[in-house]
């Protein structure tokens, strides 16, 4: 048994080095590589990004409109939600400002110069479903390292922070990153050793919680780079976006993958990304129509008959994560300011209460009886199965 020690490998006819054997065990080749047999990799080459809509392209709820942060978790672009302990400190919206290779980002704009209280936090959140993380083996001795990467741009510079947590929020990993130049896109990479303890769900519940801080007080700020059980949303001393009136912060290209390397962003095709989003949020409206808008497109119409129950089945675009919360909007005839929770009776030109007969992860059925007068009933819906 012998060991061949070399740094560079070069074909006898080549003018330059073909393969470099790096000290960390990686191999660098300056040209294409052909594998005649089977290439076996420890991390997947496709579907490796555990983040859905990381490029911020899908915005089913708001279609690019600005959302003002509140104390309730509010979704902006699909799968990305905002919240804060005090309302109205920033807005968020899909933006067309993006780094090369992307067309969208998520933009945050501070509405004031707010001094964050010690126990307060303002965050962007993304929850990864547990069914999508069993390969990480978190909570066991075999826990895999993951790499989080994303592009950011801000009018502010300095150190920024965030954290990773489990469903029960009794395991936390604080991360930090720096933005060195104002109003310039920078890609950030954070490698996180997998958590060998704690409970990490591999069900249709929350597998991993990701937080990016836009301002966090001292109580919820900790030292970055290790796992612990204290609830932290950010790194100690991190820059507060909400602390500067008019400050901007953009993020896109978010990727969470198994392994120690941030591979190029996995840009899935649009239809595939939309379908993945629809597991958590679906609607009858066209993708770019904000729910509640007065439109014909997507409206369901059913004809009732005198004194008879009518049952009308609706299938979701994809099977949803769980039986979703349904919100109904009366049809086109209700005008520009429809009252949610109703259908529109085109016979009487009035709202009638929505009435669900059956629901499930694949669809729902309407059960309606309009009494002695037959009628045409119209409605649109949204279905939310968010984590």
């Amino acid at each position, binding site marked *: 048994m012998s060991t061949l020690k070399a740094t560079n490998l070069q074909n006898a006819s080549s003018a330059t080095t073909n393969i470099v054997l790096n000290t960390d065990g990686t191999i660098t080749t300056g040209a294409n590589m052909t594998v005649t047999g089977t290439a076996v990799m420890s991390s997947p080459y496709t579907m490796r990004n555990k983040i859905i809509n990381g490029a911020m392209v899908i915005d089913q709820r708001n279609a690019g409109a600005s959302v003002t942060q509140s104390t309730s978790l509010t979704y902006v672009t699909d799968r990305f939600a905002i919240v804060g302990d005090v309302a109205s400190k920033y807005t968020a919206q899909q933006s067309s400002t993006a780094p090369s290779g992307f067309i969208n980002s998520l933009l945050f704009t501070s509405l004031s110069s707010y001094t964050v209280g010690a126990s307060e936090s303002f965050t962007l959140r993304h929850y990864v479903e547990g069914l999508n993380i069993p390969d990480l083996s978190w909570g066991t001795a075999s826990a895999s390292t993951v790499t989080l990467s994303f592009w950011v741009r801000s009018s502010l510079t300095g150190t920024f922070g965030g954290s990773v947590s489990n469903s029960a929020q009794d395991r936390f990993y604080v991360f930090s990153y720096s933005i060195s130049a104002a109003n310039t896109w920078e890609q950030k990479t954070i490698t996180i050793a997998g958590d060998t303890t704690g409970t990490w769900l591999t069900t249709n519940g929350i597998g991993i919680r990701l937080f990016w801080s836009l301002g966090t007080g001292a109580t919820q700020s900790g030292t970055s780079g290790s796992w612990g059980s204290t609830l932290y949303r950010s790194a100690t001393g991190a820059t507060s976006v909400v602390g500067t009136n008019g400050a901007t912060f953009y993020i896109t290209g978010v990727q969470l993958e198994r392994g120690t390397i941030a591979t190029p962003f996995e840009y899935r095709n649009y239809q595939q990304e939309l379908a993945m989003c629809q597991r958590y949020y679906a609607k009858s409206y066209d993708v770019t129509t904000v729910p509640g808008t007065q439109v014909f497109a997507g409206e369901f119409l059913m004809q009732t008959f005198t004194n008879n129950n009518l049952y009308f089945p609706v299938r979701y675009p994809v099977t949803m994560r769980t039986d979703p919360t349904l*919100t109904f909007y009366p049809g086109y005839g209700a005008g520009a300011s429809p009252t949610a*929770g109703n259908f529109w009776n085109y016979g009487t030109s009035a709202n009638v209460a929505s009435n669900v007969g*059956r*629901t499930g992860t694949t669809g729902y059925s309407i059960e309606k009886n309009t009494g002695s007068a037959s009628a045409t009933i119209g409605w649109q819906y949204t279905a939310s199965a*968010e*984590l």
Partner: protein
Amino acid sequence: MIMYSNAQYVASSGLNVGINVEINGIMSFVPLDPANTDYANMMALVAAGELTIAESE
């Protein structure tokens, strides 16, 4: 904090199938599924005595 108000069970064929409830002021239908985030939130509020769900009509 999501606000739930005016909650009432919805029945079909004599069985409760969900809850009509205003979520942050918007009337919605929440199914009786523990994995549904709104249902889980509401059950926690009920257990804490902070929400009452009326019987179906």
